[in-house]
């Protein structure tokens, strides 16, 4: 953004901060120069990603890397499947029937052991550097920027995440849209306050025309660029309204809601399913399941949230999602990722019957999107305390940067790209270019 264009009527500091939207609806830096480091060839097997954020940090031992030991509840019913997979039939009854599609990375590790920092890392694939935190975009915004805003649905959707990192400097249409996950859908797609839908729409059209007419002089001669930018968004928002296809994405029926478990995570994954199947612009969908911070009484059924409820809710929702996407033929082009911000303490439970924060080992589960299921990559030792076998060409623990690079690669995105023109002026690398770690996709997942 150099000073080459004439200014219409002066401008404010805010123009520089936000107002680049005036140039284009595609966000402040849609046309910014992007450079690729090595000219790699991404795998490109998926067109969308559903990212299930196990907020609070899921215990590897109680999810995808179970170990035999006295810490397991009596009814855990841990079973072995081909490819080295193990699952508790009590926790994951549905996924137990889908192990041919499931891939578990067991040699993952986290950089962080505090929730806020860990969540930040997982959402952005970058550390929470105080100098840069505010401009670091969510990986979903990067995906949105790469895949473009091609349909009527905004490319980046997010559910149930209160501390979601947004698009930051990528701006505009790559901002996450955070719609409700409810049977009724998005209430603001219509203006149904006056009789039936047709009457209401007519009334809305009249209102909108009145607004436009009254605003015409000021839109023609805005007092500055920020005002001009704001005025340019009305029509785009209106385009999403009263559109059956858009509306249907955010709605679902009671039968499906029940099939997905009548839970928050279930409803969110239902909308995610709709969005993926609609092929109308959505490319990255974050769905957060909260409650995984199981420090206390994690098998104590007297408590509201336990490993039982968490795993069962997740199992039912993800299992139904996999079934539905398979039925509609979208499974192979939709990458599903299940991960939390770090692992939990291994072996025996703590003195309060739970598990605490743990960095050295965590598990990540992948399904669909062209990965090869029915397998595990890497392994941990007998108590899931240390990584026993890295199981991939990196020959070190798999970090969130590698996972993200894998997601980017699956989606056909060159993960070595970077953007020079950032607000801070510091180059933004899609994946941090570290000579020490050489972060890269875990290509073994596609194998």
């Amino acid at each position, binding site marked *: 953004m150099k000073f080459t264009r004439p200014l219409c009527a002066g401008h404010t500091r805010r123009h520089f901060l936000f107002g680049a939207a005036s140039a284009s609806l595609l966000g402040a830096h849609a046309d910014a120069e992007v450079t690729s480091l090595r000219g790699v060839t991404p795998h490109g097997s998926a067109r969308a990603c559903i990212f299930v954020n196990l907020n609070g940090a899921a215990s590897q031992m109680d999810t995808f890397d179970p170990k035999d030991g006295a810490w397991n509840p009596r009814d855990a019913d841990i079973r072995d499947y081909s490819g080295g997979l193990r699952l508790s039939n009590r926790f994951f009854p549905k996924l137990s029937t889908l192990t041919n599609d499931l891939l578990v990375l067991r040699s993952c590790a986290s950089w962080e052991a505090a929730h806020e920092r860990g969540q930040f890392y997982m959402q952005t694939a970058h550390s929470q550097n105080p100098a840069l935190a505010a401009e670091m975009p969510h990986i979903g915004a990067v995906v949105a920027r790469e895949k473009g805003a091609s349909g009527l649905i905004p490319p980046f959707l997010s559910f149930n995440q209160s*501390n979601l990192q947004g698009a930051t400097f990528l701006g505009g249409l790559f901002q996450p849209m955070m719609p409700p996950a409810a049977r009724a859908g998005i209430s603001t797609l219509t203006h149904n306050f006056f009789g039936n839908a047709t009457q209401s729409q007519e009334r809305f059209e009249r209102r909108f025309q009145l607004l436009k007419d009254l605003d015409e002089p000021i839109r023609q001669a805005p007092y500055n660029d*920020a005002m001009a930018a704001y005025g340019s968004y009305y029509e785009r928002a209106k385009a999403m309204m009263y559109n059956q296809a858009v509306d249907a994405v955010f709605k679902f029926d009671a039968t499906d809601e029940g099939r997905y478990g009548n839970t928050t995570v279930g409803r969110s994954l239902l909308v995610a399913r709709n969005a993926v199947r609609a092929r109308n612009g959505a490319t990255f969908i974050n769905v957060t399941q909260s409650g995984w911070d199981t420090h206390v009484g994690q098998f104590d059924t007297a408590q509201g949230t336990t490993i039982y409820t968490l795993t069962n809710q997740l199992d039912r929702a993800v299992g139904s999602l996999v079934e539905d996407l398979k039925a509609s033929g979208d499974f192979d082009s939709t990458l599903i990722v299940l991960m939390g911000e770090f692992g939990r303490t291994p072996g025996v439970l703590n003195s309060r019957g739970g598990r605490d924060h743990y960095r050295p080992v965590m598990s990540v589960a992948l399904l669909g999107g062209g990965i090869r299921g029915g397998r595990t990559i890497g392994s941990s030792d007998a108590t899931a305390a240390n990584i026993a076998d890295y199981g991939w060409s990196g020959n070190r623990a798999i970090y969130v940067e590698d996972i993200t690079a894998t997601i980017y690669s699956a989606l056909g995105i060159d993960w070595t790209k970077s953007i020079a023109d950032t607000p801070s002026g510091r180059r933004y690398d899609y994946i941090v270019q570290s000579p020490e770690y050489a972060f890269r996709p875990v290509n073994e997942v596609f194998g």
Partner: protein
Amino acid sequence: MINARYLLPAALTANLFAADPHCPRYPDAVRAEQIELLELDRSYQAYSRRVQFGVAARRQETARTNLVDQHLFAKMAADNVRSAPASSDTEFLRRVHLDLTGRIPTPEAAEAFLADPAPDKRAKLIDQLLASSAYADQLTTFWANKFKVTRTHENIGTIGRNTFYEWLRQSIAADRPYDSLVREMLSASGEVDSVPGTQFFARWMDPAGPIQDSWDDTTDKITTTFLGFKTECISCHNGRAHLEKINLYLTRRTRSQFWRMSAWLSRMYFVRWSDDNIGFRPRVIVNDRTYGSYTGSVNPSNPGNRPARLGAIVEPEFILNGAKPRTGEWRRDFGSILTADRQFARATVNHIWAYLFSHGIVDPPEAWDFERTDPKRPPPGDWPIQNTHPELLEALADFFIQNNYQFRPLFRLLVSSDAYQLSSRYEGQWQPAFVKYFAKHEPRRLSAEEMYDSLITATRTEQPMIASGISRPLLYANQLPDPTEPATDFRVTDFLNQAGRGNWLTIDRAGEPSILGLLYSMNDTQNVNRSLGNSTLAVSSRNRVLQIDSSPVSDEEAIRRMFFSTLSRPPSEAETARVLAYRSGLRAQWLSDLQWALLNKLDFIFNY
């Protein structure tokens, strides 16, 4: 005197820096925003020079009494820059209400002001607004947004947050001298739940990293907020070979100088535990040792986010003037030295100036470059002077100091000036160079809080809100202690989050438009209900549409009132005609349509 022992050899710094995966080297393309602001300063300077040496006749400047005007208008006259016309009463009324109280005037207040024939009615209005509790709310929100003490942070609970907020608000309502407030904050020690000011340190403490990261983060926050310059860059590496295109002053500052600044905090430590009895609530104590100093030694298994530090012992030294500790109480000494430094007053008045005028005199107000602030020592090359009105800024700093660091006199001085009261519409050819002449008023989008507070004022749909632990009745968003509130009222939090208030932690305040945001403002039920002429809806049972509709007035008068209550101005003839042509059905119906349209109008959404 710099002890060479403490200085990292440049090569070593570069090496360490290159190995750090989290802080890529500054590229050739530097801060886009800063470049544009530089460009403004540069164009201002070039314009001024051109005129000074050119043929343009200088205008005779009329005598002005306000010191702001004496400087600004003299400069405009000297350079033959024409200012925008003076603001109309309606323009001034709305602007000063929004800036001083965070919301538009009620139509009654607006009518009374416009009808008042007194020549000094603007001064009277300013005094009245400055005396209001809404002013205290608004200025508290302004500073709270800089300190960012929120219970979303893992060190701060509801009780600690409220302790801080109530202390801040009472201080500001009483117009406590700002230097004394800052001194108390910087030396505060004790439990975060009960001792005001400790929350500032708890907020910038990094619970996961080494203590040095907490000292360093807090030091950057202190220099940024109180002295007007960010030091985060030199908290990792020397300025040289990094900041040449960003900040000349910082290129001559080293990481070890930063450590000496950070060392003022190095006797401070935290005790942190979870109070199991009350649901893992964080408890933190901020305290100081009577011995010790800054050391670079960190636990190698938890080195934090910054490149390795030297293991040397570093003693405190104030980065601007070399002052050293006088006692063993380093934080207390730090607060005294910092608030006594003239830069503290300069940076503070510049913050307030930037709020009222949309650009700082030094811009951006958190990136002072002291190599470019003194016109008697001009910077090399084509660097512009950053301080475009140095004499004015010094005069304002003097004024602030002479008025005992109190904000009310400063605000009165600034908003009483003819410069503040210029129109935002410029007659003639506007040029970028005029921005730093402050030749017209620069509009800004309403903040999330201002938008909510203006919405409920316009539509007459105020509803009580609850913020946990605060017993005062709350009606307005600028009365909320942090962005988690009102936690149980999603009608309000949805609105504020949609409007971009951020969370003071990971999500920045945002003002850019978004599709969902506009869908929300146009179609959200709660929003639209405020403008419906339907008395069965609780939210609108006494709302503006019903109030106006039930008045025995003509349609023209009803339209006029509707414009007045929402836009604080009467409609133009064309606007009246358009609305008259729009009428159909019941009056409550089309008035409701009009209310909806006005609430989505650009001149409602902006403070102009």
